[in-house]
C-alpha cells in the first residue's frame, strides 16, 4: 500500500506542479480571481450595505445563502457527534463519591443514600485528579476577558476583522478552557447539555428567521433592506443591521456547537470527568 500510495502521490504532485505553471503569478493584481466579481464587491459594498468590512458584507449579505447552509452544516456536525457518542441511559454507579469543597474530605455513598442538597459538596468520579491551583486561578481570571473579547469581535465585525464565526469560536473556547482547567462537570454545571442543544438550534433559527422575516415583509429571502420599515432606518442601514442580526445567530450556533462537540468527544459521551 505504501508503494502504491507513493506512486499515486508523486504522479498527482507532478501533474499539479505542471498545471501550476499556467496559474497567475503570486500577488498579481490582474489575476482572473481579482478581475471579475471582486472589484464589484470592493467598490459597491459601502454604497449598498454601508458596512466597511467587505468580508462581513459578502459573508452575510451577498453570499447569505451560502453562510446559512454552512451554519446548518456546523449544527448538523454537533448533532451527529451527540447521536454517535452520547450514552443516553443514565447508568448510576452503585457507589458514588462526593467531595466536601472546603475541607477536601471525600465521602462514599452506596446506592439509595442521598446527601442533603448543598453547595458544599461536589460530585466527583472514582478516578479524580485535583485541578492545579495555579491553572485554576489563572483561568478564572482569563475566562471573563476572553468572553468579553469574543463579544467585541461579534459586535464589531462590521468595522474590524471579526464576525459571528470568529467570535463564536472564541466564546466556545472560553467554556472549553473552563472544562480543561477544572473538569467537565464544572463546565456542564455552568452550561448544561440542554442549554447547549437549545442554543445550537436557536442560533440557526435566528439566521433563518431573519431571512423569513424579510420574506414576510414582501422582499426576497435574506434581503435585509425589507427590515427598513420595522427598524425605522433607510434600506441601506437596514442591510447593515440585518447583517448584525445574522452574525449574532451564527455566533450563538458556532459557540454551542464547539462546546457540544468538545463535551461529547473528550468524555466519549459519558459526561464524566473528561480530559
Amino acid at each position: 500500500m505504501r508503494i502504491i500510495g507513493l506512486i499515486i502521490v508523486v504522479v498527482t504532485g507532478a501533474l499539479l506542479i505542471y498545471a501550476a505553471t499556467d496559474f497567475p503569478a503570486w500577488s498579481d493584481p490582474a489575476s482572473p480571481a481579482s478581475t471579475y466579481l471582486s472589484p464589484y464587491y470592493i467598490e459597491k459594498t459601502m454604497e449598498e450595505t454601508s458596512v466597511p468590512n467587505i468580508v462581513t458584507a459578502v459573508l452575510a449579505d451577498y453570499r447569505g445563502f451560502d453562510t446559512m447552509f454552512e451554519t446548518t452544516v456546523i449544527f448538523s456536525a454537533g448533532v451527529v457527534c451527540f447521536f454517535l457518542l452520547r450514552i443516553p441511559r443514565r447508568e448510576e454507579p452503585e457507589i458514588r463519591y462526593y467531595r466536601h469543597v472546603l475541607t477536601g474530605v471525600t465521602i462514599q455513598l452506596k446506592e439509595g443514600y442521598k446527601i442533603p442538597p448543598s453547595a458544599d459538596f461536589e460530585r466527583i468520579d472514582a478516578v479524580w485528579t485535583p485541578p492545579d491551583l495555579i491553572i485554576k486561578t489563572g483561568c478564572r481570571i482569563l475566562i471573563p476577558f476572553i468572553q468579553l473579547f469574543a463579544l467585541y469581535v461579534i459586535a464589531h465585525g462590521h468595522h474590524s476583522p471579526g464576525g459571528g464565526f470568529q467570535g463564536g469560536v472564541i466564546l466556545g473556547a472560553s467554556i472549553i478552557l473552563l472544562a480543561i482547567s477544572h473538569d467537565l462537570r464544572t463546565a456542564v454545571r455552568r452550561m448544561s447539555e440542554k442549554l447547549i442543544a437549545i442554543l445550537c438550534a436557536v442560533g440557526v433559527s435566528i439566521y433563518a428567521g431573519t431571512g423569513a422575516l424579510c420574506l414576510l415583509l414582501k422582499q426576497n429571502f435574506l434581503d435585509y433592506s425589507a427590515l427598513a420599515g420595522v427598524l425605522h432606518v433607510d434600506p441601506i442601514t437596514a442591510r447593515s443591521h440585518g447583517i448584525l442580526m445574522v452574525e449574532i445567530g451564527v455566533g450563538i450556533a458556532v459557540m454551542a456547537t464547539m462546546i457540544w462537540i468538545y463535551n461529547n468527544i473528550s468524555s466519549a459521551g459519558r459526561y464524566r470527568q473528561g480530559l
Partner: protein
Amino acid sequence: MTDLISTVVAKYNYWIYITLMMIGLYAMIAKNNLVKKIVGMNIFQTAIILFYVSIGVKKGGTIPILEHAHGHEHHVVHAVDYINPLPHVLMLTAIVVGVATLGVALALAIRIYNNYNTLEEDEILTQVREK
C-alpha cells in the same frame, strides 16, 4: 537563468501548497491508523485554505476593510488598493466547518474503537472478515 528565477519567485507558493497537499494525500492513502488518516485529511484541508488565501493577495493591496468609510461618502474606492475579499469569505466558513467535520471524524473513530478495540485499519478488517 533569470527566466527560471522569475518563474520560481512567481510560482513557489503553489509548489508549497502542492507539497503540503500531497503529504496529506499520502497520509490518507498509506497510513494504517485511522487517527493518522484524519490528521492527513486536515493537512490536505489546510493546503486548500492556504491556496485560496494566496489567490486573494494583490501586490500593494491592504486588508479588505474600507478606509474613510463613514463620513467620507464621496471618497472613491479603487479595487486595486484592497485585496480580494472573496477567498477570505469562503475560507472563513471553511475553517469552522473543517473543525466541525473533524469533530464528526473523531466521534466516528471513538465509536470504531469502542467496537473493535483498535484503530489500526488491517486489524479492523480482519475482525470484520471473521464475523
